[in-house]
């Protein structure tokens, strides 16, 4: 008798969700367990339902939050919107959720926060699930062994109408990360190192599974940072096999299974990890113990160096269009090949986003800022990822650490990562940011973004220049 075929985690997730297999004529129909929505990419999809007179198929599998365009500043209970358009967008989400019976975590309410922060926090993000959202950083939820990916607004409408999506099966890509991270080096540095290695399109057409002893040693907060940036390598999703760390994180959360259901769920989740002998379409291995704090110097997340490394020469990039893109990036960033980033004067520091606004990120930044002051002339924004993180940070006194240092402590939201809500970086200013994208103008027209870890961001806040955070560690 033949042994059953060894399968990867992704292949198992795929098989479990096939409603109709693919044929030459059409892609597979894939069932979506959980649909997360927010104010920016859902209004046109709701309009489409209305126009076609189609009901929302599974309101019970749809969860809404407000995050992208909401203000992070309030006057008492009154949100200070940057303009009427953002206010109208937020109001539209509220009206749509009322009309279609969607549970909405509204601004200021317990449970509200950045969509990729609250899914896990509420226990909605579970191993084995398919999770989609009209947001490319949906890959974050893959940290739990869920197949989670970003979709456009038309597909948001497809899921609203049918709880399904049309998909061709992606290829699999193993990114093996062995060894322990050195002191002062974080998951953010590791994923930036991975993206530099595989390139910003290295994951195109593939679902990445992160494996290896380093990944196994990471906390859920750290694993989410890793999977979050899978899209910055162009991947269709990022995955980490569920293990004891995953189960411990989920147990007791609001929407996690309880009682006998919990034991049954865990037993099932244990069958998900990739079987011994299963094959990936491609693989790459990195020694995580050699990774140093990373900073970006250009205008995509693959253009990064170790903090002690010089900016490479664009002329060394082979293809003409590549070299052109690199030199355009350096011109935009006002950086020179051969120079170091250390010592560059910083105007803004942003600690937040779905990449790095969880409790461990805030603790890391606070550990460096405690008892120290923000350098004169530097504006520092600390934006917790959710109401729950805000509450816990306040309980631990982290808000006080940030405030006493001279940083602004804000309410949860995407804030300066996407700069839709008025929290922006001015033209020409240099920002050290814990977010995920250093694209031109991402944090405001003309803004120059250096992506870094919460530790490196905190070091920049204190020193007023880009600095190696390891020099501030006790």
């Amino acid at each position: 008798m033949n042994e059953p075929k060894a399968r990867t985690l992704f292949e198992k997730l795929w098989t479990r969700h096939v409603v109709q297999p693919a044929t030459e004529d059409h892609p597979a129909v894939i069932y979506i367990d959980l649909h997360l929505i927010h104010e920016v990419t859902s209004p046109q999809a709701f309009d489409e339902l209305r126009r076609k007179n189609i009901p929302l198929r599974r309101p019970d599998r749809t969860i809404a939050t407000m995050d992208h365009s909401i203000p992070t500043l309030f006057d008492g209970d009154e949100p200070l919107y940057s303009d009427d358009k953002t206010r109208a967008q937020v109001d539209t989400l509220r009206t749509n959720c009322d009309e279609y019976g969607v549970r909405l975590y509204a601004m200021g309410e317990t449970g509200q926060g950045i969509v990729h922060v609250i899914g896990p926090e509420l226990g909605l993000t579970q191993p084995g699930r398919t999770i989609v959202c009209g947001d490319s950083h949906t890959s974050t939820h893959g940290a739990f062994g869920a197949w989670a990916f970003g979709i456009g607004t038309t597909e948001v409408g497809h899921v609203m109408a049918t709880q399904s999506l049309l998909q061709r099966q992606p290829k699999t890509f193993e990114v093996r990360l062995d060894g322990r991270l050195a002191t002062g080096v974080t998951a953010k540095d590791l994923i930036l190192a991975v993206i530099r290695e595989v390139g910003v399109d290295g994951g195109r057409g593939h679902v990445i599974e992160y494996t290896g002893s380093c990944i196994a040693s990471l906390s859920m907060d750290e694993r989410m940072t890793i999977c979050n940036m899978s899209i910055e390598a162009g991947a269709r999703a990022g995955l980490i096999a569920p293990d004891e760390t995953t189960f411990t994180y989920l147990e007791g959360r609001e929407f996690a299974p309880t009682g006998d259901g919990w034991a049954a769920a865990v037993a099932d989740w244990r069958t998900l990890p990739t079987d011994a002998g299963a094959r990936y379409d491609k693989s790459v291995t990195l020694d995580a113990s050699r990774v140093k704090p990373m900073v970006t110097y250009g205008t995509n997340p693959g253009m990064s160096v170790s903090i002690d490394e010089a900016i490479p020469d664009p002329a060394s990039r082979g293809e003409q269009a590549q070299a052109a893109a690199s030199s355009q990036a350096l011109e935009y960033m006002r950086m020179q090949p051969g120079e170091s980033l250390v010592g560059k004067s910083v105007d803004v520091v942003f600690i937040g986003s779905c990449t790095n606004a969880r409790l461990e990120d805030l603790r890391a930044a606070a550990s460096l800022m405690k008892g120290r002051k923000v350098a004169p002339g530097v504006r520092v924004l600390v934006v917790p990822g959710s109401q729950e993180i805000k509450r816990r940070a306040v309980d631990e006194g982290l808000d006080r650490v940030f405030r006493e240092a001279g940083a602004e402590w804000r309410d949860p939201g995407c804030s300066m990562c996407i700069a839709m809500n008025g929290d922006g970086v001015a033209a020409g200013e240099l920002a050290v940011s814990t977010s995920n994208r250093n694209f031109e103008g991402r944090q405001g027209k003309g803004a120059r973004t250096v992506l870094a870890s919460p530790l490196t961001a905190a070091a920049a806040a204190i020193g007023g220049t880009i600095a190696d955070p390891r020099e501030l560690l006790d």
Partner: protein
Amino acid sequence: MEAFRKITSKTVVLPVDNVDTDQIIPARFLTITTKLGLGESLFADWRNDPEFVLNRPEAEGASILVAGENFGCGSSREHAPWALLDFGFRAVVSSSIADIFKNNAVKNGLVPVEVDAKAHRFLLENPGASVTVDLEACKLVLPDGGAAEFLLDGFARHCLMNGIDQLDFLLQQEEAIARFESTST
């Protein structure tokens, strides 16, 4: 969605790799609740430069955009293809196009055309060349009559060629979806 079989147009060339959706349509223009009028803000920040390709008279009337590799990377915002279409583009040609962008493009009648490196180089080096995107034959016909083949998922191609909304197909799967829900979840 407007059906697409074949179009012939001169090209506009943006010889930059990794053009991300934040460039195609900056986030400050995403505060709308409709799809309308985004063409005005297409490449808004790059268009500040009077010499930017889209500001030049040669760009007038072109409906095929040629760009460097990995076009459309980054955010999943469908506002990017909406903006390109509203501006007047019907096809984007590159050696590679990011997954989510490609998926969003086909749902709106914007044809993603991924050609081989040789044809791509020719197009980058010859801005304004008159080319034909032939969806029926899955070929990009070059000015010298030569052609580069491109791949597009058969279902997406069928929908594009006939102006069919993919949702109609999914809605027809109701029975299978209900069956799946009753047994699996």
